[in-house]
């Protein structure tokens, strides 16, 4: 089966510009996650969707970051305007999302490496 797809793989922008990342989860996976991974750190959850609803976005900097999953399938993460500290790898993951299961396994895409100059 196809894995989680992300695009673009690399992006270089200047500060104050905007950028968008796209993710297509594994077919049939109800839960979708966006993570920020800064060099030398573990992934930090930005937002978790269950179908097209937001489950948790407590760590999403809402003044500049936004995410949507309008049809409950693919998703877009946007940054506007970007800051230098946004330089990181943005990972998308998906899981089956069976309600109530803490043991739901996440499957990750290859990530998008963002460099803000």
């Amino acid at each position, binding site marked *: 089966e196809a894995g989680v797809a992300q695009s673009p793989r690399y992006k270089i922008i200047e500060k104050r510009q905007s950028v968008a990342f796209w993710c297509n989860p594994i077919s049939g996976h109800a839960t979708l996650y966006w993570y920020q991974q800064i060099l030398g750190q573990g992934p930090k959850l930005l937002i978790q969707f269950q179908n097209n609803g937001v489950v948790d976005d407590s760590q999403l900097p809402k003044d500049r970051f936004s995410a949507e999953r309008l049809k409950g399938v693919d998703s877009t993460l946007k940054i506007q305007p970007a800051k230098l500290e946004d330089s990181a790898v943005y990972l998308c*993951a998906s899981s089956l999302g069976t309600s109530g299961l803490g043991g739901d396994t996440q499957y990750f895409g290859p*990530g998008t490496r963002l460099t803000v100059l």
Partner: protein
Amino acid sequence: AQSVAQPEDQVNVAEGNPLTVKCTYSVSGNPYLFWYVQYPNRGLQFLLKYITGDNLVKGSYGFEAEFNKSQTSFHLKKPSALVSDSALYFCAVRDIKGGSYIPTFGRGTSLIVHP
């Protein structure tokens, strides 16, 4: 609030020797624990998980992990390391928050296996 600690930034081991990568956790409910591996310029790959039952969990590539409730630990182990095991290893926990299970990752441990 849930948390995960990986106390070692780096673990060095000789090929053929056993390896251990440490992880401790803190959750409010039942622990759901995971190990992932990340190779350079790649996304994270699932290795194994503990949900309930046997404290020794077996996973991919010969890895296993031991759940210890009293020590709140979930250490990753392998009896005989390979050079190809060199990578970043992340421990993760899922805990209940607002009716849903939210994941938290540790900062990662770099495993270096020397020939």
